[in-house]
């Protein structure tokens, strides 16, 4: 090996006891799911609830969770996004379409201006459908490659790029005042 290799071994797919397996699933995937969840909803509490609801779905249907790290991770991510989508649909359209563009941007990068910009970005992200938002945050914030997102969500790379393009266009429309691309 070119450089010193340091690794840990994590048990997965353990035993036959569903509770034991769920404990392993939880320990192995909780952090990753939380990070995605936090970027999909507007508060820490909502993010914690969303991750817990995802694992509760796995707890109620243990046999539907596939075996193997990559497959079970993909299953959990899809369930999390679908759960977020269900909640998103219940949210009133008015709440989602509060016009973030109405917030005025200032040229200076003061803490207040940065906070206003962040608020505007979050409002703009809230208007995206959850799957598109998940693809956008995985790509833009987490640096996950298009091909990896595609295999995680079970869709083609072309579809991932299409979602990214649609998201960028929608965000540019509402955030143009901050990017200087469009008012």
């Amino acid at each position, binding site marked *: 090996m070119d450089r010193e290799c340091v690794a840990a071994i994590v048990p997965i797919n353990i035993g036959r006891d569903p509770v034991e397996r769920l404990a392993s699933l939880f320990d192995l995937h909780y952090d990753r799911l939380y990070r995605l969840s936090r970027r999909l909803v507007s508060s820490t509490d909502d993010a914690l609830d969303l991750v817990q609801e995802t694992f509760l779905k796995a707890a109620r249907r243990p046999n539907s969770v596939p075996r193997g790290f990559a497959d079970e991770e993909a299953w959990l991510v899809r369930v999390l996004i679908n759960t977020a989508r269900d909640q998103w649909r219940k949210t009133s359209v008015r709440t989602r379409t509060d016009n973030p563009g109405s917030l005025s941007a200032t040229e200076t990068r003061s803490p207040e201006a940065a906070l206003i910009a962040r608020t505007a970005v979050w409002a703009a992200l809230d208007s995206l459908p959850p799957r598109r938002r998940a693809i956008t945050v995985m790509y833009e*914030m987490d640096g996950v490659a298009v091909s990896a997102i595609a295999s995680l969500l079970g869709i083609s790379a072309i579809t991932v790029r299409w979602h990214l393009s649609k998201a960028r266009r929608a965000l540019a429309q509402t955030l143009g005042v901050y990017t200087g691309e469009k008012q």
Partner: protein
Amino acid sequence: MKIGELLREADPLQHEEPYPSADQRKASRQVVLKTASNAMGPARITLRPAMIYPAVLALLVAAILARAWSPSVVKVQAAVSFEIRLAEDAPGPGLRAAKVSGSDRTIYLHDQAVVSNSDIESARVVQSPAPSRYYVEVKFDRRGAEKMLRGTRGHMDRPLAMVIDGKVVGAPTLRSTIGGSALITGDFTKAEAERIANGIR
């Protein structure tokens, strides 16, 4: 400023704790595991005669398919030597001292490996939560899975050494038994992970 930069600057994980607290995690874990225990219940399947023939047929088809597929998992000479050994934190009779790569830690290896290359059915690279870092998922064959389950069952809260090419690359403390498969996590680039995954089969 571009959209991507704007998004990264607004990333909530840049401005708050990137992970939940241990208490939050523990509370959520308890709720989930309690639900799982309740959901298990005394599930029973009553097999009606009409269900037996399709079940037998499905088993036969599965057996034929398994035979047909077996050539694809024929093992070749491993290019990377891989072993999992039980280990101890203190010296003892029959134990061999070994340094853990990347640390000053010394552990004491049992003389027999629990599993080695010949017990692996497949290995593949999977993306880690961190960008550009990869893990290796190892699936043991039936004999290997039984060896892992037996070997790790009586070794809780003691170290388990992973030995690649003669070097102890990790010696985590065993917190639960390991059965059919395991994940080798580490700071691997894709090339390193591929080398391990391709080499240990």
